[in-house]
């Protein structure tokens, strides 16, 4: 690890009071975030999903304009209005999903924008390939410049993107979750690379939520939560438990308005601010009986890489199964499988003791499995169609006469849904005009109108304001009490705790643990989410022969 020897110089980059709001989601992505970036240092930026880590770095890389705040480079104020400005200043970001042209070769993608010229202004291909090969060899990166990007594994795509940044000789290199798709060996390669770059006097910023990596590589760590920089520590002065507490926050210290309101809303009210959120959710008569919907030993692969391995979960009528975990740990693949849009490579999905053989969203709906996706604005709704058209999308029977919609039964049906779910909009309004909460209500009521016995919610409160959130939570509880089996997929620990009867935590494509009753605590969930529990187990194994 490098020692910072340039304390007297001004820091390489200073971010001061960066603020960014996304009005469409009514979310403060960054509130007054200040950061100092020094030469020769590896700085980690940690926080939960949506904490604002990527946003503030996008601002620094010129990919996103902040609403207010200043950027100082070597003590002088600069303005980055375009990625070009940041690149010219020596600041490069390797995005979490690197932007490449898939059908072009690696070398073509890497030199795009800095093409070496040869005869008659043509690209000097040999020089380009030689340059990339030289860099790849120096840092032991297994990248062949002549391969097409589309045939690379996602970890290789990431390494290639890092090579591409190095070709531009950056002073500041920002890496957004670079290790997510990497094997242990690749992580090691990457860390060696980062160390030698730091030794060359470059500044490195590593966005991650893997705390173990932070301790393995970083010199300093900054913790972000809900768009705010909550803490900054030298790595020698902190511990994993401290950081994980800072990341997820504690009930009694939550400073976000949203969360405070959310807690106040919980029913019955928590007896003590610090008491377990889980406690209020334990019901006297938790239904017993056989599971209504389950998946057994489901595995899914991408090439040899397991996306899901041997996942088994089940949910009974009248209960809520919460599934949580950090992104890139298989949650999204699990969601695709249980909603019928992806066929698992092995294992089975079972409803009513019967194995489902045909995987399609349509088939799943017929079987009474409703699905409310996260990206409901893209997949779940037709934004330009009217409220009514969206409501009747799934229902034709009973509304048509000889294949033509009957206006009276249409209006009757939609009015009924509108009233039941309290949709405050005219039926003829295009969906786009409605507030986020109302759109959610429309989709929810449509999905529930098919008489589902199992409802899958993915991040149901994503992008909703407090009142709409309230509505959605109330509706989920009401459904549960009416005997519906509910699967709630959410990365929001508060949401999971306040709604779920049982909680499954995903880590690296498998179920790390299932928590019931009083075991459902914020700390336990966080430990399993971050993979700390396994790490501790593994260390224990190593110690005791």
């Amino acid at each position: 690890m490098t020692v910072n020897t340039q304390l007297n110089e001004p820091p390489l980059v200073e971010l001061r009071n960066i603020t960014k709001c996304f009005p469409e989601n009514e979310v403060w992505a960054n509130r007054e975030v200040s950061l100092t970036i020094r030469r020769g240092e590896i700085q980690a930026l940690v926080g939960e999903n949506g904490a604002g880590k990527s946003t503030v770095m996008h601002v620094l890389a010129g990919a996103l304009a902040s609403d207010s705040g200043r950027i100082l480079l070597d003590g002088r104020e600069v303005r980055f209005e375009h990625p070009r400005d940041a690149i010219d200043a020596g600041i490069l970001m390797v995005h979490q999903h690197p932007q490449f042209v898939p059908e072009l070769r690696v070398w073509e993608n890497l030199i795009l924008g800095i093409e070496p010229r040869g005869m008659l202004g043509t690209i000097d291909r040999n020089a380009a390939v030689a340059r990339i090969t030289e860099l790849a060899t120096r840092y032991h990166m297994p990248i062949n410049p002549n391969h097409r990007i589309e045939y690379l594994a996602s970890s290789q795509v990431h390494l290639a993107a890092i090579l591409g940044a190095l070709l531009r000789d950056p002073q500041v290199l920002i890496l957004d979750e670079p290790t997510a798709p990497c094997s242990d060996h690749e992580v090691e390669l990457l860390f060696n690379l980062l160390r030698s770059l730091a030794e060359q006097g470059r500044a490195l910023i590593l966005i991650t939520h893997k705390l173990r990596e932070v301790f393995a590589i970083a010199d300093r760590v900054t913790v972000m939560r809900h768009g705010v920089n909550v803490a900054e520590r030298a790595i020698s002065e902190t511990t994993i438990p401290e950081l994980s507490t800072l990341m997820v926050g504690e009930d009694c210290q939550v400073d976000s308005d949203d969360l405070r309101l959310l807690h106040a809303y919980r029913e019955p009210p928590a007896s003590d601010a610090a008491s377990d959120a889980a406690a209020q959710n334990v019901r006297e008569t938790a239904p017993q009986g056989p599971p209504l919907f389950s998946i057994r030993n489901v595995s899914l692969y991408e090439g040899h890489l397991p996306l899901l391995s041997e996942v088994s979960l089940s949910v009974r009528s009248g209960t809520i199964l919460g599934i949580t975990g950090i992104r890139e740990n298989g949650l999204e693949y699990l969601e695709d499988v249980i909603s019928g849009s992806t066929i698992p490579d092995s294992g089975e999905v079972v409803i009513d003791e019967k194995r489902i053989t045909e995987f399609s969203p349509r088939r799943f709906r017929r079987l009474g499995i409703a699905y409310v996706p996260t990206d409901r604005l893209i997949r779940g709704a037709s934004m330009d169609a009217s409220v009514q058209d969206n409501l009747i999308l799934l229902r034709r029977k009973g509304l048509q006469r000889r294949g033509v919609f009957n206006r009276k039964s249409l209006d009757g049906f939609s009015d009924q849904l509108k009233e039941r779910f309290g949709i405050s909009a005219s039926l003829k309004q295009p969906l786009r005009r409605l507030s986020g909460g109302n759109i959610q209500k429309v989709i929810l009521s449509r999905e529930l109108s098919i008489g589902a016995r199992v409802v899958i919610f993915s991040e149901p409160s994503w992008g909703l304001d407090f009142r709409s959130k309230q509505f959605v939570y109330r509706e989920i509880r009401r459904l549960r009490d009416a005997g519906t089996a509910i699967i709630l997929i959410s990365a929001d620990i508060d949401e999971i705790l306040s709604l779920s009867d049982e909680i499954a935590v995903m880590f690296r494509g498998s179920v790390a643990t299932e928590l019931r009753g009083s075991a459902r605590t914020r700390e336990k969930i966080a430990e399993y989410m971050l993979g700390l529990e396994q790490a501790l187990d593994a260390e224990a194994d190593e110690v005791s022969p």
Partner: protein
Amino acid sequence: MIANSLGIMAPILIAALGGLISERAGVLNISLEGLMLTGAFASVVVTAASGSIVLGLLAGVLAGAFLAFMFSIISIDFGSNIFITGLGINLLAAGGIPFISNQMFGTKGVLRFADIALLPRVVFPFDFRIPLLHDLLFGHQIGVYIGIALTALVWLGLYRTSFGLRIRSVGANPEALRLRGLSPERYRRIAIILSGIGAGLGGGLLALRLGVYLPNITSGRGWIALVAIFLGYRRPVGVLIAAFVFAFAETVSMAAQGIVAVPNTVLLSLPYILTVIAMVVYSAARAGGNRRARSPR
């Protein structure tokens, strides 16, 4: 017959090569027809006025480039839908040219100038007498040689220069350019203007072969050029082959008139029917290919 086909091919090919560049940059330019028509009109008028073929063709190129520049402003800067914009350019050409023609010459119909210069045939200082090869290589109008030279030039430009790399990249993923500090809009604009240059030149060559401007002289050649881009798998040599196939079909259909006992109208529609068939076969082959590519893991 080959020579005839090549002559018919040249304007289509040149317009298609321009359209190919903008298509590769992610902008399907459906206004090729209107741009060709404009190029044809401008070329004939300027050639007649100046007596110079070169100035005439240059005028066709400039007219096409100017209209395409307008296209880029409307679609890129004002963010309008490219199909609607392209349609607008086509309608503008179809309505604007008769209007200008009427203002300048008092007619909306045929423009015939007494001693207008015609496209020269190219005479080579050397020759040889191998029967088939001779007919294939020599004695064509200059447009044929321009078209083939441009095919090579566009190939070189697209696949061997940084400009071409950026054009191909902006069409596949504009965000990739933006994050590398390049401006996707800039490359799209240049590509659109190049398509205007190609179509303008193609239209000019088409009209100066005859030395007259006729209303609707392009008679769908711009659309055929558009089809040729896709039939040619979006590659310069493929476009060359596709343009030739269409031209050959047209030659055959014209030659067959009066010989075969099929109504003229049916014969004359042969190239268009062929285009439709080729398009269907192409899509089917592509869909089949895709299905194979997406084999289960």
